[in-house]
């Protein structure tokens, strides 16, 4: 690869109309007529499988029935009671592996599940209550600190506020919302929805939001544990995993999440510089999102490379299909081994070796290599929990590099609970899963606080 090769990273690759089109809602809201047709397809199953498949156990047949009989407000309350972030979940949940995956209408010979996610969005989009739908119980006098205002933190805060406790919600960023604000693909969450939902959650009262307050810097766990009756940690995964090819001064090897955040926060997408040839390493949600979004920003060639096979990918089949529809090329069984730079320390190409499984099922090199020219390479190989935030305080026990909790989401520390992506758990790292953690932890914290008052 010639070391004087110029890197092609540019803004304004597309017309304004194209940006507009490429970043509009991928799953737009249903019209009233569509919702009418779709809601009437629901069979109103006994002990419906979709309910158990929803991590927050929304009573799906009930809310759909309510939409069908023109009781949209009732539908919205049914959803929000189980999942206060029902609005964002409706937009971001991979429903194909959750509720819709088990819908009885998804079976042979029909294979056409009820569009539960979009009906959920319909109910909530059309819900305009004159006052917050949940009432706060009288002030309990108890105080809870929640660190991390992502889905887990917000859900926990709302449930505790409902019980009359006072919550202080800390976040290191200037805007709360966690990945809802900074990570979810632009075309899944539009019109500043994350902030609107946050405002809705705060309406209940009794939640004090403190942004730009970082645990480990301006706030410390030890102090929180003393000043508050309980602490809930919902810190997410903030550290990017390393590929091993990182070099100082190198440009062109990027963390996906940083660029995804730029896309989410951009006031004008045409001002975002994007490479012409893009390589994405990884095969999860994030990999799909960065690949599709760079393609939609005008990159000509986007290639997603994964070291294992399609079946091992954590992205769902539907997401893979979406990537293909977006024109993303997918290469499996290959891992990066070295990068090439030009004389300006800019990445210009990346070399891969082909992989296979050995007899013991371990990944091994096939000793075959290939190169891909690239203007930028995005790492999407996962995020890690950053334990730095506990420096100077007693830290909770970790398990597989994440916070260890029991079935009540309690950590090893006496008055500290945790949930969301930052804990070690069986499920996938999903928004809806985090909401459930927050909700369950709130139940447990509430019980604990009750015992404290009576005990």
């Amino acid at each position, binding site marked *: 690869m010639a070391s004087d090769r110029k890197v092609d990273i540019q803004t304004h690759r597309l017309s304004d109309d194209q940006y507009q089109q490429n970043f509009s809602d991928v799953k737009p809201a249903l019209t009233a007529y569509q919702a*009418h047709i779709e809601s*009437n397809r629901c*069979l*109103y*199953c*006994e*002990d*419906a*499988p979709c309910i*158990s*498949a929803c991590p927050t156990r929304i009573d799906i047949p009930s809310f759909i029935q309510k939409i*069908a*009989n023109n009781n949209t407000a009732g539908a919205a309350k049914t959803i929000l009671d189980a999942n206060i972030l029902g609005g964002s979940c409706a937009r971001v949940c991979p429903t194909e592996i959750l509720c819709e995956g*088990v819908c*009885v*209408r998804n*079976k042979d010979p*029909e294979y056409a599940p009820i569009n539960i996610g979009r009906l959920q969005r319909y109910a909530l989009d059309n819900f305009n209550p004159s006052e917050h739908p949940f009432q706060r119980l009288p002030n309990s006098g108890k105080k809870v600190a929640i660190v991390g205002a992502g889905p887990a933190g917000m859900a926990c805060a709302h449930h505790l506020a409902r019980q009359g406790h006072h919550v202080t919600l800390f976040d290191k960023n200037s805007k709360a919302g966690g990945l809802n604000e900074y990570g979810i693909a632009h075309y899944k969450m539009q019109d500043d929805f994350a902030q609107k939902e946050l405002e809705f959650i705060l309406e209940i009262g009794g939640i004090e939001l403190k942004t730009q307050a970082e645990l480990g810097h301006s706030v410390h766990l030890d102090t929180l544990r003393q000043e508050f009756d309980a602490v809930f940690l919902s810190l997410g995964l903030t550290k990017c995993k390393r590929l091993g090819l990182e070099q100082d001064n190198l440009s062109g090897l990027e963390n996906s999440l940083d660029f995804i955040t730029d896309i989410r926060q951009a006031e004008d997408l045409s001002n975002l510089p994007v490479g012409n040839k893009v390589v994405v390493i990884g095969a999860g949600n994030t990999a799909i999102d960065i690949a599709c979004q760079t393609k939609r920003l005008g990159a000509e060639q986007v290639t997603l490379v994964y070291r294992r096979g399609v079946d091992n990918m954590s992205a769902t089949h539907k997401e893979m299909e979406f990537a293909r529809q977006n024109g993303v090329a997918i290469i499996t069984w290959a891992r990066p081994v070295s990068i090439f730079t030009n004389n300006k320390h800019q990445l210009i190409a990346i070399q891969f070796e082909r992989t296979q499984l050995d007899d013991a099922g371990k990944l091994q090199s096939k000793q075959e290599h290939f190169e891909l020219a690239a203007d930028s390479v995005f790492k999407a190989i996962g995020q890690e929990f950053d334990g730095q935030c506990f420096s100077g305080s007693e830290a909770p026990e970790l398990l597989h590099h994440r916070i260890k909790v029991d079935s009540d989401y309690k950590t090893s520390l006496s008055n500290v609970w945790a949930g969301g992506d930052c804990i070690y758990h069986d499920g996938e790292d999903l928004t809806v899963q985090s909401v459930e953690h927050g909700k369950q932890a709130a139940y447990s914290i509430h019980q604990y606080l009750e015992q404290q008052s009576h005990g």
Partner: protein
Amino acid sequence: MADLTNNFIGIKSPNPFWLASAPPTDKAYNVYRAFDAGWGGVVWKTLGEDPHVVNVSSRYSAHKLQSGSILGINNIELVSDRPLQINLDEIKQTKKDWPDRAVIVSLMVPCEEQNWQQMLQRVAETNCDGIELNFGCPHGMPERGMGAAVGQVPEYVEMVTAWCKKHTRLPVIVKLTPNITNILLSATAALKGGADAVSLINTINSITQIDLDTMAGAPSVGGKYTSGGYCGSAVKPIALNMVGQIARNSETSSLPMSGIGGVTTWKDAAEFIALGAGNVQVCTAAMLYGFKIINELCDGLSNWMDSKGYRNTEAFRGLAVPNLTDWQYLDLNYKIVASIDQNTCIECGRCYSACEDTAHQAIAMKMGDKGKRTLEVIESECVGCNLCQITCPVPNCITMEKRETGKSYMNWTQHPNNPFKG
């Protein structure tokens, strides 16, 4: 190919489908379109005396399923609101232009013999094939001493029928109202009056809905409403029952019947004929889907008849009548049980809810691996009520299977639990 031609009390038509007296047959324009489309006959929209009535604006309303499908509609229209002579002239021209189709004239006249006599004379001049006496229209006209008022009093039915028979040589069909408790009384009255046939049913008194904002029913005429006549699919079971009761009653069984009420598909028509009707009349289905449905009606009926080897409608007419009996003669030792086809079951569990909550706890829902659910019938508990089969959304997934009880026929009149057993 089955022969669909029809001969109803001597009135011939190319098929057994007539349009019932209603807006589809209100004037020549509609009737010509209907005949063009292939309808076998029409019963012209009921004629009254001049000066003609006037209708309100806002006339129909519907009773719909939540999904939006229409169960039935109701209406508050009166008889024809056009001058009598215009109708008569059009009828005459229609019959001239369509000699192979049946053209029947429906009449509603004040309850005086001379009024009927005069009207019948004028109608005879149109060369129509017969008359239908509208005693049934349940709204508007009764308040004015006509319509249902006559139809609800058997003596009047008999009297007016007799007048008509006396003053016309045309076949007389008496249209029966369902707004009575025992249809046999009206049918017998028509028979005694000399009717050549009865047609049934006319519409059923109804209020379809209340607008909860305005607190007015529908159709709402400036916020006020009145009972309307209900018709369409929803009334078919009621109409079939009345047809069946007339057919199996020894006194009325020979009375020719034109079946009306909710006929929407060929199967509905075949059912009326199987219960003894000589032909059928259709109104709502045509109003909702247009005259083109005649293609599906004729084609469906003809194909089904071919599949059964029925050469004409007479070949199966009345075949369901002998099986219609009174409850006390049903075999108490006949036993069926539900059977769920596991291959087509989609595990919705509706049969479970139905049986567990409201029937006999005869379905077990077993949880298996990976959320798999198996719905199984506990035969010993199943009484064979059919509820699970009815609620199952998958066609033919639940079937009712016969079980031999080894016991011979025994009905309630023979049962030891019957206190009145002889």
